[in-house]
């Protein structure tokens, strides 16, 4: 569960979000939407504990993100960035195994349990057969799945994803969101992902967090539509109507 209390963030004089208080429960898939530059990534990084330049508080399962140790944080929050990682010579299983880093010893050797979790995570994203392929020869959709498997292997109640659908084609986007939905509901994870895909946010997610600077609105999709927020922030051009 993620809880924001009187949360404000901005750069210099520019305020992106001010005095937001909201809760994201577990077993819930939440889409984070907003126009470019409204602070979607900034908010995700703050929740992930990688940006502490905010006022107010962020709590993960009751613990303040600012006061958790790096290791403790790694056991609570997994993060999938926009960065495309392709390390030559590193297989999918190796990448997913790195997700076990918070639980392994100084050399990072995997135990039997760790190995099983790595295999399970790859299976969960449908990449079980790719375990020994290296990532420099895989498509964007496949890479994204492996990075999600890595987040799963980290075994955290919260998973944050920054624009996971941005490099994917239409069918892959839907597949990925179906996967996230399944993980949230079946494994009880609290998943928040930022996206520009309104249709995905409004049709496939349990809740939508909308940044309407400087406000942060968190509502189920139906209520968000009824409130007229979408029409106002994302107007459809005349010629398309």
């Amino acid at each position, binding site marked *: 569960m993620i809880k924001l209390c009187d949360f404000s963030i901005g750069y210099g004089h520019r305020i992106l979000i001010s005095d937001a208080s909201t809760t994201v429960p577990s077993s819930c898939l939440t889409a984070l939407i907003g126009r470019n530059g409204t602070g979607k990534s900034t908010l995700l990084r703050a929740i992930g504990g990688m940006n502490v330049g905010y006022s107010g508080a962020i709590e993960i399962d009751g613990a303040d993100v600012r006061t958790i140790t790096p290791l403790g944080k790694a056991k609570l929050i997994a993060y999938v960035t926009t960065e495309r990682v392709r390390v030559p010579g590193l297989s999918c299983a190796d990448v997913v195994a*790195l997700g076990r880093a918070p639980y392994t010893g100084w050399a990072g050797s995997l135990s039997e349990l760790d190995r099983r979790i790595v295999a399970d995570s790859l299976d969960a994203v449908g990449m079980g057969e790719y375990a020994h392929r290296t990532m420099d020869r895989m498509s964007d959709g496949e890479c994204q799945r492996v990075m999600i498997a890595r987040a799963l292997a980290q075994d955290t109640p919260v998973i944050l994803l920054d624009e996971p659908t941005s490099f994917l084609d239409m069918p892959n986007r839907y597949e990925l969101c179906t996967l996230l939905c399944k993980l949230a509901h079946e494994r009880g994870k609290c998943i928040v992902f930022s996206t520009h895909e309104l249709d995905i946010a409004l049709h496939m997610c349990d809740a939508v967090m909308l940044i309407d600077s400087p406000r942060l609105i968190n509502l189920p999709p139906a209520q968000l539509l009824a409130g007229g927020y979408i029409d106002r922030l994302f107007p459809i051009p005349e010629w398309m109507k």
Partner: protein
Amino acid sequence: MATGTVNIAMSQVIAALSGGECPPAIAKIVVNIRLVKAIVALLAGAALTVSGLEMQTLFRNPLAGPYVLGISSGASLGVAIFVLGAPLIGFSGYLVSFGVAGAAWTGAALVLAVMALVARRIGNIMVILILGIMFSSGISAIVQVLQYLSHEDALKTFVIWTMGSLGDVTFSQLSIALPAIFAGLALSVVAVKPLNMLLLGEDYACSMGLNPGRSRALLFGSTTLLAGTVTAFCGPIGFVGMALPHVARMLFADADHRVLIPGCMLLGADVMLLCDIISKFFTVPINAITALLGIPVVVLVVIKNRSMAA
């Protein structure tokens, strides 16, 4: 150990090492010069290769290395200031070798700190590389100014040092270099897990529980000890640190540092010994050999990276 200005038969080398019968002059050459030189070659090779590997992972840049990022130049500046200035203070003997090492460490650490600061602010790899090269050039310029202003004897010492040589290391210097390099290598072994995590980039590494300050300190400490010590005693040796980690990656077909760190140690030590033998064979500076062997590897890496990006 058999090759050198004076050729010594292999049987005599073995005799000298095992304390068997051979002329005292030859025994002296073998034990005091050739043996020390061989140990230095092994150490320097391992140290430079591992420090190169650490830099490449930390900066996520295939072309990083102690030489390119200006760490060797930083160490040079430290040594220049010390060697050209030490006669004025009146240091001598053991203190001088310790001072040279200290100066090189300080110089290397300073440059590394500046590069790390720059790298954090500017994510762009090209900018960092260009800055590193500019930095090296700038430091070389300062060193030249120092040379111009300095005394003749000190100048000669320094110029010989810049040519890079494994041969001028004495027993007393080895007694400093050995523990320093071993400490650096030990730190690199401790850092295998952070290094593996850093493969995915700093953001990912932090999200997986990496303590950024501590791991950076670990890696910087290790690199400074390794590259700084080698530069202090052998002069700036190029290309080994940049090229050999790639050779190790190709040989082992792996990116896991648990394999690569020991792999780089072995490979670096072997190749350096080989370079040393070749350089003695033709009596040319070791820098020329490492460059000639290293450049094709770097060219290959650049071409391979291009085809990957395309």
